[in-house]
């Protein structure tokens, strides 16, 4: 009897309590992209929401796979809640892949809009943060992409793959960004993204019905920040320099001139070491880049694959790398922002010294910082063939 009573009580408790946190899958609007722009004093939030039936369902119609909603509010959180007026379902943030910040917002400072992103429990930390170049952040989310039905996951994947294979790009996760923002010795960078072609056309289905889509989303190089404000953009080489110094490069290519053309090398392993030395009470930085490369493509007239020739090539490469890295350094110094985290390195390796120089680090210490760059290339492999067939043809 009492056992039964107990069971009844527990069950009634269960049933009564039922559904506070329950959310059925078909009541969710799965949000994969979020764009934040600043309009006057208000935040404009654009959300890209999936339409699951169009992506994976059996009966697919011609309707688009994603749709966007927009709302404004005094804070990001408020604007997101305001979205529920237009959105048919409850917004679900856990599967967020991208946050795009508007360029205007970025120049004014991104710190305030990030707080919500790290505070809310639904959000995970594995999304990328990007800066939209030239256009509004919202426009990035309004372009349909071919192949991948979900535009945000297209961008997400292309960041991941180009990070692996192409030195100038770098995906930034929220916790990296926040760690850098909160550190006094470090400044963040964010990858830029922009729309190539007509924005309005990019939102229509016709854009993906053509074999060569007129409007595409493309990744740009890095935007650099001073504290939380965007101060400038790096070009390809400068971005490359950044990633080399930060030891972010996993796999990339380098091109070197030779007689009658050039040779392209696959850099498959690089390792960068940043060393801090104290010199007359001032920090001195040595950046040492060590790379293993293999020959990827040869378009030279002469045979460059001899042992001696390869050594020459490696030296040329070293020189080129030093130049590229210097280029990036100079730009950063001009903008007076220590994006390379040299300050952080000094703090880690020599905290006492750091305490002496940390005052006005970006403006003074960093700008006058003595940075030595060393580079060393090892050419290990020549690909699947030894000698190029072109030499024979030209030699005859």
């Amino acid at each position: 009897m009492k056992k039964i009573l107990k069971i009844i009580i527990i069950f009634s408790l269960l049933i009564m309590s039922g559904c506070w946190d329950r959310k059925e899958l078909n009541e969710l609007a799965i949000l994969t992209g979020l764009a934040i722009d600043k309009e006057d004093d208000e935040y404009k939030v654009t959300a890209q929401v999936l339409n699951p039936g169009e992506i994976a369902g059996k009966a697919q119609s011609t309707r688009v796979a994603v749709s966007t909603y927009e709302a404004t509010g005094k804070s990001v959180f408020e604007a997101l809640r305001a979205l529920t007026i237009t959105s048919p379902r409850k917004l679900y943030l856990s599967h967020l892949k991208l946050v795009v910040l508007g360029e205007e917002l970025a120049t004014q400072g991104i710190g305030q809009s990030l707080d919500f992103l790290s505070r809310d429990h639904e959000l995970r930390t594995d999304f990328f943060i990007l800066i939209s170049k030239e256009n509004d952040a919202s426009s990035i989310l309004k372009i349909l992409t071919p192949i991948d039905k979900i535009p945000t996951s297209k961008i997400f994947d292309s960041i991941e793959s180009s990070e692996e294979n192409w030195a100038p790009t770098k995906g930034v996760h929220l916790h990296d960004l926040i760690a850098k923002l909160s550190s006094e010795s470090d400044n963040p960078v964010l990858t830029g993204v922009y729309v190539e072609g007509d924005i309005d056309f990019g939102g229509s289905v016709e854009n993906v019905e053509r074999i060569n889509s007129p409007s595409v989303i493309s990744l740009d190089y890095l935007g650099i920040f001073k504290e939380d404000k965007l101060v400038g953009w790096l070009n390809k080489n400068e971005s490359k320099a950044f990633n080399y110094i930060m030891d972010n490069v996993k796999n990339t290519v380098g091109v070197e001139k030779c007689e009658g053309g050039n040779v392209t090398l696959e850099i498959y392993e690089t390792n960068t070491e940043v060393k801090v030395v104290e010199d007359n009470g001032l920090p001195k930085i040595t950046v040492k880049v060590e790379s293993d490369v293999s020959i990827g493509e040869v378009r030279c007239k002469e045979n460059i694959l001899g042992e001696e020739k390869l050594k020459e090539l490696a030296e040329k490469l070293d020189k080129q790398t030093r130049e590229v890295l210097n280029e990036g350094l100079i730009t950063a110094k001009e903008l007076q922002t220590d994006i390379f985290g040299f300050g952080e390195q000094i703090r880690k390796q020599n905290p006492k010294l750091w305490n002496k120089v940390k005052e006005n680090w970006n403006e003074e210490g960093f700008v006058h910082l003595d940075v030595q760059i060393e580079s060393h290339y090892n050419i290990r492999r020549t690909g699947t063939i030894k000698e190029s067939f072109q030499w024979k043809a030209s030699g005859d």
Partner: protein
Amino acid sequence: MGVLLVATLISIYEIPKMKKQNMKRDFILFSCVLFLASTIATLHVNGVTISNPISGLRAIFSPIGLGIENFFMEKGQ
């Protein structure tokens, strides 16, 4: 209401057993604790502010606690 219901249910569940086994002391203790719990719960539910027992402890201990904190903080600087 809910609180009283829960209290009654607990009593219905426990009391007969204690009676059967003649556990007087248990019964007294049981009713004391149950009474205490349900009183506080009822008051709390009805919006009566109950003075937080923690605040008394805080008054006693915070000098010690903060003293230790400050000790570490100052030495750390």
